[in-house]
């Protein structure tokens, strides 16, 4: 397992695409900080009545869906970028290969998620200063941690989902499209369903699950524990499909 993991890490760091993904995440954090600054500048120049109507200036809320998508693309790359013929000749134990890829993607997703969330919430905090809610939504570290933790968990889940779908469909492009539909396409449609399906279906969509996991939704359809289970189910179903494909298919 140690050798397989070392090989996967060497593969990841010796091609350009993962560095592009990390750069894109960095760019999102910087763009998010700039957005926070613009919102705060607008807030400071507005009358008190309008200030009460301002949305949060925390950029982590804006960048999290993009980071989810980028990390899912990273998972897809780990699954699909190297031809299976060579990968399985070097590591013919398919379960070991799967385990190495899973550990690598989980670790990379967790690290990227923590760094992105810590940086974006930290810079937002600096920009917002001691301004009151609603522009500053968090009332201290204890307040922001449930949201940040939920966001990191969602990034971890989308990374593993990208890996699982990639192993199942064996195409980076198809995986990225499927992940885009799951993260953005379907959640855009579910609110248009007739009652009560609109609420029920939206409650199990990734963008809404993050808020339910954080426990910051009033009267949520799912408890935080149920939302965590639902979020994890995305990764488990995708990894299950990827495992079946890897174990049963010819290279």
């Amino acid at each position, binding site marked *: 397992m140690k*050798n*397989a993991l*070392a*090989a996967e*890490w*060497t*593969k990841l760091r*010796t*091609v*350009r*695409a993962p560095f592009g993904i990390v750069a894109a995440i960095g760019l999102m954090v910087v763009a998010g900080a700039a957005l926070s600054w613009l919102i705060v500048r607008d807030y400071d120049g507005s009358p008190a009545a309008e200030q009460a109507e301002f949305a949060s200036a925390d950029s982590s809320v804006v960048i999290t869906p993009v980071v989810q998508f980028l990390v899912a693309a990273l998972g897809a790359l780990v699954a699909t*970028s*190297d*031809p*299976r*013929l*060579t990968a*399985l*000749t*070097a*590591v*013919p*134990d*398919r379960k070991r290969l799967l385990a190495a890829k899973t550990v690598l993607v989980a670790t990379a997703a967790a690290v990227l998620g923590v760094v992105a969330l810590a940086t974006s919430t930290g810079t937002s905090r600096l920009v917002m200063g001691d301004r009151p809610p609603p522009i500053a939504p968090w009332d201290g570290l204890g307040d922001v941690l449930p949201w940040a933790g939920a966001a990191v968990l969602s990034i971890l889940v989308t990374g593993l989902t990208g890996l699982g779908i990639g192993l199942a469909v064996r195409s980076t492009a198809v995986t990225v499209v499927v992940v885009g539909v799951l993260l953005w396409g379907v959640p855009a449609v579910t609110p248009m369903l007739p009652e009560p399906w609109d609420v029920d279906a939206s409650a199990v969509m990734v963008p809404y699950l993050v808020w339910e996991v954080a426990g910051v939704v009033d009267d949520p359809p799912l408890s935080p524990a149920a939302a965590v289970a639902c979020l994890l189910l995305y990764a488990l179903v995708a990894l299950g499909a990827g495992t079946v494909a890897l174990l049963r298919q*010819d*290279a």
Partner: protein
Amino acid sequence: MIEVRNLTKRYGGTTAVDDLSFTVHPGLVTGFLGPNGAGKSTTMRMVLGLDRPTGGEALVNGRRYADLDQPLRHVGALLDPAAVHHGRRALDHLRWLAASNGISGRRAVALLEQVGLGGVRDKRIRALSLGMKQRLGVAAALLGDPEVLMFDEPVNGLDPEGVRWIRDLVRGLAEEGRTIFVSSHLMSEMALTADHVVIVARGRLITETPMEALTRNGSLEDAYLDLTSGRGL
């Protein structure tokens, strides 16, 4: 030693390999001949555990390839030189393969020099010529200093110098006592390289024989065409 026992592979209603049995012995170059679609590549893929047999088994030194710990130390294979990430540098390609089997990265550097790619080790694979990619594939096969080596059409894309280099390499490896299994369409090349021949057609074994027995009454090409056209020797 490679042992293929009653190996069968079916894709739906199509039989690619049909109850094939033969043995590849150490110390010899065994040529694997057959027309296009005869099942040569499929057989080699099943030996490496890449494709799952419908029936039978393929063993390397008495064990299935998938059961070998650090398999690159036992078996080296060049099946498809294009089966690489073309955006990776040549040396990095060997480095990840080395890491996967606990092989020193210094061995990767030395092998690139040995196959004549020392000067392009930091070039991305997409910038290498077909012949250079073939040499990189040979270096990957030799990475674990294995006892068993399998080459599928190893001289494809090589210039005359490269063809001779492969021939000398393969002969030298066999003289060291290694098991060498080589498929090729080039009869003249195989006649110069192989000691033993396995001929297949439509997935079935036509003959398994020493080269000298096959060429006693004429050229390898004549014997091959007689056998694969069903006219016999």
